[in-house]
C-alpha cells in the first residue's frame, strides 16, 4: 500500500510534496499581500477621517460574517466579471484573464487583512501612554514618536496575533482545492480517486498539514522569544 506514496513516476509521494509547496507559496503570497492591505485598513481605522473609519469597519464586519468559502467563490467568479465589465465600459474588448492562483491569493489576503488590521491596531495602541508622553517631553514631533517609539514596538506586540492568523490562513488554503488549484488537498483527492484509495491520501495530506502548522508554531515561539529578549514581562 505504501508504494503509492513513493516518489517517482509510479507513486504519488512527489506529487503530494509539490502540492504542499504550492500550499506554502499560496499562504506566503497571501500573507505578504494581506499584511500590506491589513496595514492600510488599520491606518483607516486609526484615522481621524470618519468615512475612512466607517469603510474599514464595514469591510471587517463583512469578512467576519461571511464564510471564507463563499468569499473565495465570490472573488473567483466576481473578479473576472468585474474586469470584463470595466473593460467593456471603457470601450475595449478584454481578454484579460485572472489566473486561478491570483484569484485565490486575492481572496485569502482579503480575509487575512480583515483580521490582521485589528491585530495591528491593537498593537499600535498597546504602546504605554507613558512612553508617548516621555517622547513629547523630550521634544519629539508626532512623526518622530510614530517612527521611533510606536513602529519599532509594533512588531513585538503584533506577533502573537499574527502568528495565529497565519495558522488560520495556512489551513484556509485548503479551500483552494474546490477552485481546482493543485494544492495539497486537491492533489490528495485526485490521487485518492485515481488509485481508489482516498483514505490513505487524505490522511497523508492531513499529516502534512499538521507538520506545516507544527513547524509554523515552533517558528513563532522562537521569534517571540527573540523579540522579547531584554523585556521585563
Amino acid at each position, binding site marked *: 500500500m505504501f508504494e503509492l506514496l513513493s516518489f517517482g513516476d509510479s507513486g504519488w509521494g512527489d506529487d503530494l510534496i509539490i502540492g504542499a509547496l504550492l500550499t506554502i507559496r499560496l499562504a506566503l503570497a497571501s500573507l505578504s499581500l494581506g499584511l500590506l492591505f491589513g496595514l492600510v485598513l488599520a491606518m483607516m481605522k486609526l484615522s481621524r477621517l470618519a468615512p475612512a473609519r466607517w469603510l474599514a469597519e464595514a469591510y471587517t464586519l463583512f469578512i467576519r*460574517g461571511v*464564510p471564507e468559502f*463563499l468569499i473565495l467563490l465570490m472573488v473567483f467568479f466576481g473578479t473576472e466579471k468585474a474586469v470584463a465589465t470595466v473593460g467593456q465600459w471603457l470601450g475595449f474588448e478584454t481578454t484579460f484573464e485572472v489566473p486561478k492562483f491570483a484569484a485565490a491569493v486575492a481572496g485569502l489576503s482579503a480575509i487575512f487583512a480583515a483580521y490582521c488590521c485589528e491585530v495591528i491596531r491593537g498593537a499600535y495602541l498597546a504602546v504605554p501612554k507613558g512612553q508617548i508622553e516621555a517622547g513629547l517631553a523630550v521634544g519629539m514631533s508626532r512623526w518622530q514618536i510614530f517612527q521611533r517609539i510606536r513602529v519599532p514596538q509594533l512588531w513585538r506586540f503584533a506577533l502573537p496575533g499574527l502568528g495565529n492568523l497565519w495558522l488560520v490562513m495556512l489551513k484556509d488554503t485548503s479551500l483552494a482545492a474546490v477552485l481546482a488549484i493543485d494544492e495539497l488537498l486537491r492533489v490528495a483527492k485526485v490521487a485518492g480517486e485515481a488509485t481508489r484509495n482516498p483514505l490513505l491520501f*487524505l490522511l497523508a495530506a492531513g499529516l502534512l498539514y499538521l507538520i506545516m502548522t507544527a513547524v509554523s508554531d515552533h517558528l513563532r515561539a522562537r521569534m517571540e522569544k527573540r523579540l522579547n529578549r531584554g523585556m521585563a514581562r
Partner: protein
Amino acid sequence: MGYQDIKYAVSDAVCLLAQDTTPASFAKYCPRYIDGILVTVELLLLSSFIGFFIGALVAVGRVSGGPSVRSLAWAWSYVFRGTPLLVQLWIVYFGLGSLGEEQLGVLWPFFKSGWAVGLAVLTINTSAYIAEILRGGLATLPPGQYEAAVSCGMSRGQAMRRILLPQAIRVAWPAYGNELILLMKGSALVSTITVMDLMGQTRSVFARGYAMETYAYSAVLYLLLALFLTLLLKMVERRLRVGGYP
C-alpha cells in the same frame, strides 16, 4: 407532520412574507435559501451544544487528568486544531466512507449520511477549539479557589463543576463567541460533502444562471445570521456578568 415537514412549512411561510418585499431574483429561489439556512442553523446548534460538552471534558482532562488523559486531551486539541476542517470532512466522508458497508458494518448508516458526517466533524472540530479556550479560562483562576473548594469537602469533580468551570466560562465567553461565528462560517464546507446547507443551496442556484446576485444574497443571509448570533452572545454575556466579575 414530521420534523422535515415543519422545517419546510417554516421556510414556505417566510418566503410568502418575503415575496413582495424582496427582489424577484431572490424570491424565485427563496425557499431554497431558507431551507438551506435551516440546515445551517440546525448543524450549528447541535454541533456547538455537543461540542461544548466534549470541549469542557477535554479541558478538564487537560488540567486535572492523569498523565495519559492529559496527553490524550492535548493530542485531541492539537490534531483537530492543526489540520484544516475541510481535510477532516473529506477524510471522514470520502476517506473512511470509501471503506463501504462491508467493512464499516454497523457504523455504515452514520458514514452513509453526509449530514451526520458533517455534524460529527463540526462537533469534534469545535470541541478542540472550545477545550483550548476553556483551558485558557481555567488558567486565569487563582489556585486558592480549588484548594478552598476541596477543603470545604467538595470532591475534585464537584469543585470543577461548581466552582472552577462556571468562572472559566465567564472569562472565556467572548472568545467562545468568536469561535461560534467561526464555526458558522466553517459549516459552509459541508456543502462539499453533498449537504444542502445554505452554501449547498447557494451553489446549486448559482449553477442555474451564474448570476453574481446569488452569492450576494447568500452573503447577506450569512451576515444576518452572524449578527443574530452576536446579539444573542452579548445578551448571554450580560447575564453571566450579574453578581460576578465586573
